[in-house]
């Protein structure tokens, strides 16, 4: 099997592997640009739970937020800018994940937590798959999507280059193709440069 055949196979199968990621990336990008109403959802529920900490931890709001999150077994990131103790001694924190926002208040005296959960809907979960920069606490398997994102990025970059290479190897007339490719690349580079220098 020649080089062309190998590259075509990687291009084809790599593209198929990225199929869903490309759809998610495209739809979520369009949503970030146009803020579609149908993708917004909000459903709030409340509950209270007694809390017993099973581990000793350092004093401080950050440590308390992390330990509360672990005791409640909530996946997501706690928001340090929403974490504080108010003048009456009640502790407040917020935990965000792709599906739910948890607003938690904790009474140190009665050792009970009130949790307001805001379900953000199916599209919020899908849009969160746009890019995953790091590990999500209490959700260890998200590492697979993190790795999948890397693989898809490399495949897309390879597919653009290999697609052009495969076209170059074809015998068809390339005048129109060259004109579009060079023209659009020049326009795009100038646009990137102007935006970088002038804003």
């Amino acid at each position, binding site marked *: 099997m020649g080089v062309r055949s190998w590259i075509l196979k990687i291009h084809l199968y*790599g593209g198929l592997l990225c199929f869903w990621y490309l759809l998610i990336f495209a739809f979520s990008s369009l949503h970030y640009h146009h803020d579609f109403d149908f993708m917004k959802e909000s459903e709030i529920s409340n509950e209270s739970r007694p809390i017993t900490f099973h581990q000793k931890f350092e004093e401080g709001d950050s440590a308390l937020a992390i330990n509360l999150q672990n005791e409640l077994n909530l996946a997501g990131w706690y928001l340090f800018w929403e974490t504080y103790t108010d003048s009456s001694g009640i502790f407040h924190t917020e935990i965000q994940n792709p599906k739910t926002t948890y607003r938690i208040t904790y009474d140190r005296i009665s050792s009970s937590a009130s949790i307001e959960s805001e379900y953000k809907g199916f599209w919020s979960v899908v849009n969160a798959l746009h890019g995953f920069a790091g590990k999500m606490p209490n959700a260890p398997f*998200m590492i697979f999507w993190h790795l999948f994102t890397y693989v898809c990025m490399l495949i897309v970059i390879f597919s653009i280059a290999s697609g052009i290479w495969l076209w170059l190897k074809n015998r068809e007339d390339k005048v129109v193709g060259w004109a579009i490719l060079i023209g659009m690349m020049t326009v*795009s580079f100038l646009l990137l440069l102007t935006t970088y220098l002038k804003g």
Partner: protein
Amino acid sequence: MYTTLRKIHLYCCFIVATFLLMYFVTGGVMVMESVFHRKSKHTTVQTLAIERNESEQKVIQAVRSKLDIEGRLRITKSSDGNSVYHFRRPGYHAELARTKEDSVQVTIREGTFGSVMNDFHRLRGYEGTWTHMVWACMYDLSCVALLIFAFTGVYLWWKLERNKKTGVIFLLASTVTTVFTVLYIYQVC
């Protein structure tokens, strides 16, 4: 049909190739946040004296010319009700605020490589100068092109390959990974 879709697949790539490369390279830098930090590289703060009776617009224009400030303008209000003028471009943020009758405070933040990449990736919106309009248009075109690549790609593979077993395995792998992740998020979140 096959030839037409192949041409659409190809020419879509030619039109948005540079932008798509930019989005996937900058996206790669963004997911490697621990390596490429997004903090400011330099921050300079200076206070410039201005004419007392000059209008705010003229003052801002004069300061911009003097310090060669360029970028997309956004105006916000400070806690004391004064207007704050933000000029942004990838990796650059200038903030102009009239602190007293006769002075303007200028804060300029220059970002690291990670911050420049992050700003390029997140630049959007049909507002601002013509460059931003063209940018927003290219942004939308890139999204539509990705959808076209995905669907025409599957069609072209289906027509091209006699033995579809390997392709089906890859397509299934993509589906399983995505469905597993969505269900997992629903389960743990």
